[in-house]
């Protein structure tokens, strides 16, 4: 009786086998497909690698005097938050053109300081000197100070921060 083929119909054994295959396939798909998404999720998520940071109203920036702006930026990757600090010297000319220089020395990434008495950027680590426009005057630095892209919108100066 049990497991016997009914006349002309679908046998019990065949029915159970078929149902097992359907159920098993469904369970495998319900768990398996989300599992693939689960593994790929962080790889497919793109975070912006650049950002425009407002430094403030241009009328507050002194003319012909390199002025340091500092800010820090926090970024979240996964569940981990990291903060990075940035410093930029802004030089505003009389005809409202700007020169934005990163204060990171191109030698070993110390922070350079504008010295009024020397009229140059001095790196305290290895005595590097950079001119007002960022050129290397003396010291071990291989390149001029990094020139940062900027824009002025609604009287506010923005600098373009690009993650390396």
């Amino acid at each position, binding site marked *: 009786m049990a497991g016997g083929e009914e006349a002309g119909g679908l046998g019990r054994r065949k029915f159970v086998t078929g149902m097992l295959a359907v159920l098993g396939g469904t369970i495998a798909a319900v768990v398996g497909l*989300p*599992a693939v998404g*689960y593994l790929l999720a962080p790889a497919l998520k793109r975070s912006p690698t650049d950002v425009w940071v407002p430094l403030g109203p241009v009328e507050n920036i002194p003319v012909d005097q390199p002025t340091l702006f500092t800010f820090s930026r926090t970024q979240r990757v*996964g*569940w981990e938050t990291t903060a990075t600090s940035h410093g930029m010297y802004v030089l505003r000319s009389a005809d409202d053109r700007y020169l934005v220089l990163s204060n990171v020395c191109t030698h070993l990434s110390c922070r350079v300081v504008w010295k009024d008495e020397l009229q140059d950027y001095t790196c305290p680590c290895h005595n590097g000197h950079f001119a007002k426009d960022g050129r290397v005057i003396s010291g071990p630095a291989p390149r001029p100070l990094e020139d940062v892209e900027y824009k002025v919108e609604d009287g506010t100066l923005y600098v373009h921060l690009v993650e390396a």
Partner: protein
Amino acid sequence: MVARVYAWLDRRLGLTTIYATTLDRKVPKVNWAFTLGSATLFLAVMQGLTGIFLTVYYVPHPEQAYDSVNYIMNEVAFGWLIRGIHHWGATLMVVTVFLHMLRTFFYGAYKYPREITWMTGVFLLLVTLGMGFTGYLLPWNQRAYWATTVGTSIAGTVPLAGPLIERILRGGEALSALTLARFFSAHIWMLPVALVALVGIHLYLVVRLGISHIPRDGE
């Protein structure tokens, strides 16, 4: 083509024999209570799979455990599903293990020649409870922390050896990074290895001895 590939493999691996002895074996007339063992095995496999997936993001460190679980739940695609299955599967598995044990007990299925199946089953029950106990700490939230504080304190009430057992479980005086790390290790390595070994023996015996019939009146 499929038939020829199967025949080639069958001659070398004995697939038909394996199938016949493990899945197509003779069983007495039984009822739904006899599916509890298979249900438990299915849940155990699911726990293993979802657990492996959880380790992709989970970090057993006091400062990151909670945040990484939060990340799984809220930011990873289907993370809520994977952890949900693991969470509810754990509870369900304890239930099915217990019902499976009760069925074996009340049908007298532990008797000769199946004593060793029963003994491995007892250890499997303990391993399952151990998995539940160690896994409970891993989210490192308030409930996990205090449940484990209480649980390890209970272990500390054992006469004579209690304080030592408590210190061994905690890896020191109080719950710390050491507790989390050793619970994690027990949860993903020690207990699963024991579980796989015991399940192997348990299933081998089920196949070797067959399952017992439902006791008849007067037996």
